[in-house]
């Protein structure tokens, strides 16, 4: 079974009363990409529909779960600091983000 839908995943085009913040550039896993002030690092990492933010010590895939900084599942290496909660860390111009494996290796 394959999930089919008209909708493109990621940033909504229907902004319903909001306007995105200024565009910035960040690096995710070595690739430069656009992001917007006001976005969480988690959202920036998932923009291309890759919901896997890290793999655990046991090798399992994890993504955003609680979305409020409480569950510590959406961890990534942000500006060289591993285990950073991406759902409550906000994108900044020039930020370097890496998906992490295990206890914090890239």
């Amino acid at each position: 079974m394959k999930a089919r839908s008209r909708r493109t995943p990621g940033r909504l085009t229907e902004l319903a009363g909001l306007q995105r913040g200024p565009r910035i550039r960040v690096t995710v896993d070595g690739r430069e990409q656009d992001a917007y002030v006001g976005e969480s690092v988690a959202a920036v990492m998932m923009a291309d529909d890759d919901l896997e933010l890290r793999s655990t010590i046991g090798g399992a895939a994890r993504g955003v779960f609680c979305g409020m900084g409480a569950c510590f599942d959406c961890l990534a290496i942000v500006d060289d600091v591993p285990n950073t909660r991406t759902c409550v860390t906000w994108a900044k111009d020039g930020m370097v983000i890496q998906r992490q494996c295990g206890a914090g290796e890239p």
Partner: protein
Amino acid sequence: MHDGERYAVLVVGGGPAGMSAAMTAADAGLRTLLVDERPTLGGQVFKQPGLGFAVTDGRPLGAQWRYGHRMVQRAEGSAVMTAMRTAVIDVEEQRDGWNAVLATDDAHTRTVFASRVILCPGAHDRPIVFPGWTLPGVITAGGLQSLVKTQRFMPGRRMVFAGSGPVALAFPAQLAEFGADIVVALEAGPAPNAADVARLAGAAAGNLDLLIDAARYRAGLLRHRVPLRYRRIIVRAEGDRRVERVVHAAVDADWRPIAGTEETVAADLLCIGYGFAPSLELLRLIGAGFDDDEALGGPTVRRDRWCRTTAARIYAAGDGTGVEGSKVAIDEGVVAGLAAVMDEGSLPEEKAVAAAAPALRRIRRRRALARATARMYHVGRGIYGLADESTVVCRCEEVTAGDLAHVIATTDDISVVKALTRAGMGPCQGRYCSRHISAMIGREHDIALATIAPSTPRMPVRPVPIAAIADRAVTDPGLFTAPSGNP
């Protein structure tokens, strides 16, 4: 030992309860500090757009946002001092108040003193353990709401919503407005029957707005052709490193899946909304007394009618004391704020009583509706029985239900289970697994869930970098030496 900052009142949590408590105290002339981990006031319920986003038109953001926005503006214009992106990570009782250690992002921690502390920690989604709940693409209702409402971001293409309670109607309807493709919305409880509706209406005298909301959500689902199915529960999520399929099944009255009723649907996003559980870390750390009410989210802090906890000079208000919604939270904030002002000696008792009366009256009325709703949407015990042996229960330390069962067979002490399995030792400190482990212990040893003591709370409440804690000014207590003189 504090760093020189002194307050009459420290309010923890910038949601509806915290904002109203802080404004009540500050309006009475007390030096008041309000701290919250988020970048903006409003809390989980009045989620404000991320700092950087601009509001071009308030109308599509909904009545709740507008109401919250006005409240945030009032709080910002008041005498309340605020510290955003700031967590209280430890509290220590002093003779005449409390020291609280504040952590702002990764900056060095600072310790402030407050004569009285009002805890309004709010709630988080009730964690439900089922096979596949750790897969990317499984997200809590609160988490998805944050992404959509504050960042206009929607992961995945096709979504299943699984939950129960009023949220099960409200949230998918909201998401549908944003163009979410919702394959099916599952409600574990029954469809409301005429008797329930009548009871709700009875309890709803003066709560018409809430009933109107419910009706609107239902209409929203119909408009977006979202199939809403009652008495069905999430059974598992499947997929290779992300959700690809969602399996759901019919449940009995206790929310136990009925064999042979499983259905599988293709989806890449599974949103979970089985109600909320109060955030208890700080309340537990101060040593407050607790009761347990599953309908209100599990353990609930014990309070008197002035929202005083059993710990000296500590008050608690809002969903963090038992989940009853934002309107009760606002009124509780008023009551707690007035109590702190009165207890500080800044307001005579009879004036406090008069000032609190309208809020207390509204709380009573709304509580009646909350209780009626809770009866309709009672949480079935089957919710704690969905995991199989290989299901990871402790997400942080990757401890499976099988690992836990092995140890739980030999002990009913959750501290021993923690010590021998590492479950609950990770960075989330057991927030997402301890209730499930307690339920497992309860089942194995035939003990009521409400009577199982949780493991000891530990500071820091949030992980903090070593450099942000380290303080060379603290003197080494010196070497271990024998007391002087011959022992």
